[in-house]
């Protein structure tokens, strides 16, 4: 028997499978609300103007090259990435309480965080994920050997946060467990805690000395405001609400449109109350060791684009405008879809569409409704009912609203 002859073929990843079905669909009016990538009002990918300008500046600079970065990544990138997430005046940065490394976007940072915690964290190696959460989270941590548990988050009946369930899970989990939190623009629901809810959540986590991993994939993209979107992270760290270790996994895929360039960072804050230079050096050296045996060093080009933007005042200003452009267009589409559904008299309530934030809306549609949307109307959603609002535009939102109206009525009165 040849090696690998007995290997079983796996079905395609659901998200990539959805994209494949969409691409294979020959209907001219098909709508892609599946994969999470921004689209402009013509349904096209959008390279941010700040990115265009940064690339021109970068490629034309005399010292541009393709040399290896250090294992930790491009220092102008990691330093400015830390400032974006923690704030220009962050005490944690000033007091050197943070270790930052470039990663292969957010997924790479989550993987690194997992490997690092698995090897060096003394607490409970169970990681609590929100219910629901991003599909890849479970794979990332199970792959590394974590036990995966969940905490209540989305209440499907009320289409709102199950705060009491969430807080109960925090207090029930063994001390020193690992909790993965979406910093903003929760994927897939689009539902975020408000500030006072965040305060309660953070206080409960601190009481049990849990370890927090913040997954920050949408800063600036959620509301258009970088500071507002970093609220729970800054509250936890610089306000010292959390004194246990924190890891931030940061992605620039969405907010800078870097997607395939794979730009991200991992920031480890071993303690918010004390800086420890030798511990920080040890942590950095171990992260380097892990990175070295997995990929040697991270990709250069995307991190240089982002560093150029974050370190050039004009480009930074342009980027903030680009964030407003993207988030406001998505906000408009949320408003339009909701108002059209309400105008059509579609059964159920639809205010959750506008109360959610970020790229996604957890519509509340059932898997059967989603299947019918795809088959009968050429509208592609994830089976959980998650719709990428970025796929909506002025040219298709009416069609989508009518299609949703049709499938909801088709399956009769539901719990919508």
């Amino acid at each position, binding site marked *: 028997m040849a090696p690998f002859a007995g*290997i079983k073929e796996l079905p395609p990843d659901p998200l990539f499978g959805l994209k494949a079905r969409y691409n294979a669909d020959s209907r001219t009016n098909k709508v892609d609300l599946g994969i999470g990538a921004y689209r402009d009002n013509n349904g096209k990918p959008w390279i941010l103007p700040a990115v265009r300008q940064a690339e021109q500046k970068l490629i034309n600079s005399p010292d541009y090259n393709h040399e290896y970065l250090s294992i930790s990544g491009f220092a102008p990138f990691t330093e400015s990435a830390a400032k974006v997430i923690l704030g220009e005046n962050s005490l944690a940065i000033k007091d050197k309480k943070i270790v930052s490394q470039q990663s292969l976007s957010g997924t790479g940072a989550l993987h690194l965080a997992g490997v690092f915690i698995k090897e060096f*964290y*003394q607490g409970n190696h169970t990681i609590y994920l929100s219910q629901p959460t991003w599909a890849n989270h479970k794979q990332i941590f199970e792959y590394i050997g974590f036990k995966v548990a969940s905490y209540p988050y989305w209440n499907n009946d009320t289409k709102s946060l199950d705060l009491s369930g969430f807080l109960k899970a925090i207090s029930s989990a063994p001390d020193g467990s690992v909790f993965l939190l979406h910093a903003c623009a929760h994927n897939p629901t689009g539902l975020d805690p408000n500030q006072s809810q965040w305060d309660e959540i953070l206080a409960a986590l601190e009481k049990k000395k849990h370890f927090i991993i913040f997954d920050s994939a949408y800063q600036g993209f959620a509301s258009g405001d970088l500071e507002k979107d970093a609220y729970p992270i800054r509250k936890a760290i610089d306000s010292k609400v959390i004194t246990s270790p924190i890891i931030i996994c940061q992605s620039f895929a969405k907010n800078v*449109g870097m997607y*395939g360039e794979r730009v991200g960072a991992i920031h480890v804050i071993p303690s918010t109350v004390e800086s420890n230079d030798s*511990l920080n050096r040890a942590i950095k050296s171990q992260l380097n060791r892990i990175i070295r045996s997995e990929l040697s060093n991270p990709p250069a080009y995307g991190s240089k684009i982002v560093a150029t933007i974050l370190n050039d005042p004009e480009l930074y200003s342009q980027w903030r405008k680009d964030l407003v452009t993207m988030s406001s267009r998505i906000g408009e589409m949320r408003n339009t879809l909701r108002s059209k559904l309400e105008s059509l008299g579609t059964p159920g309530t639809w205010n959750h569409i506008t109360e959610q934030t970020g790229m996604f809306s957890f519509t509340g549609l059932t898997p059967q409704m989603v299947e019918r949307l795809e088959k009968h109307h050429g509208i592609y959603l994830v089976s959980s009912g998650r719709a990428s609002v970025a796929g909506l535009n002025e040219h298709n939102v009416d069609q989508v609203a009518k299609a949703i109206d049709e499938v909801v009525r088709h399956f009769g009165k539901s719990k919508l």
Partner: protein
Amino acid sequence: MYKTQLIKSSTQARFLAVRQLSSTSQLLKWNDIPLAPPDKILGISEAYNNDSNPQKVNLGVGAYRDNSGKPIIFPSVKKAEEILLGKETEKEYTAIVGSKNFQSIVKNFIFNNSNKDANGKQLIDDGRIVTAQTISGTGSLRVIADFLNRFYSNKKILVPKPTWANHVAVFKDAGLEPEFYSYYETSKNDLDYANLKKSLTAAPEGSIVLLHACCHNPTGMDLTSEQWDEVLQIVQDKKFFPLVDMAYQGFASGKPFEDIGLIRKLTKLANENKIPSFALCQSFAKNMGLYGERTGSISIINSSGEASKAVESQLKKLIRPIYSSPPIHGSKIVEVIFDESSGLLPQWLDELDKVVGRLNTVRSKLYEKLDKSNYNWDHLLKQRGMFVYTGLSPEQVIRLRNEYSVYATEDGRFSISGINDNNVDYLANAINEVIKN
């Protein structure tokens, strides 16, 4: 029975004491985190950067430098980037295993170069080759090591002694068990071919065996065609799984087409089902100068097209939780260069040939200037690729560093690219001084 075991490091990592806070002693719930040893190769560059001697020479990192000691961008790559800048309309995620176009380019570049490799073409047409884009060569080694750890029947992996510094770490972290086989005899500065065959023959049946396709790192000594035939016969007899590391295609001869003799032998054996399956790690870091863009691939040759589909699906499942999908910039550059309408492929091949030509010129110049009265330097002319494995002792290398600001790894490996017209005299003189004992 001669068996080369990994030398167990007697150096224990020093543990740092984490200061305990009296009021919150459970606060830092870290296991003791030792300071990991610094990467040897990158450490050389850091020491070099900190040296203020204007005559300093960096022979540490294997990255190409021009005759002024500067990094270069291949002009064809520069043009490809300008084309990309002008036409790129998106930065979307590529597939978990990279774009179909990139996969096709790599398959043909390696297995059917210039459309003249009938055996490789057959394997491609039969769908027996799965190719995935990876994070350069290191990423491909890690992906295949994880894959073999999960799906191959044996965790033993035979690596040449010596081999690239990172191989052992990559394989160990993936859960494989590296074991050395004889390759190079340092006392003679030559291949230890007799013991190579002996140690492979003695190794456990069904092991994975790592083979450097060309330009062996760090020694620069490659097997001849006849020697490869004998080794591959042992591979068949012992039912080894060959894992080929090809980070330097084009750096042996200046022509990528000429450097894939081992691949041609393997594809022939695969078609004959004598070695039905093998894997190949490939990188564009050196031959296209894409170093930091991290552009590479893993190819797995399977027994059938059906097996390939299953293998590809498992590769995707393995990659997705680690980094989701690979970086696009370098692979897009590759795609532009291989796009006939860009006209850049012949230019790139010509530029690569010139780069390799400069390295060979430097080799010869250094050889000429070295004192041969007490030391045989003939091996410099036999070695190929980016490195010279000098045979200098760690003590001599340390003297070169301390007394002459010449930086190289302590195994005596020199990155020949760091040598140029401005420093070759100084370097030769320094070497001549330290070998005078």
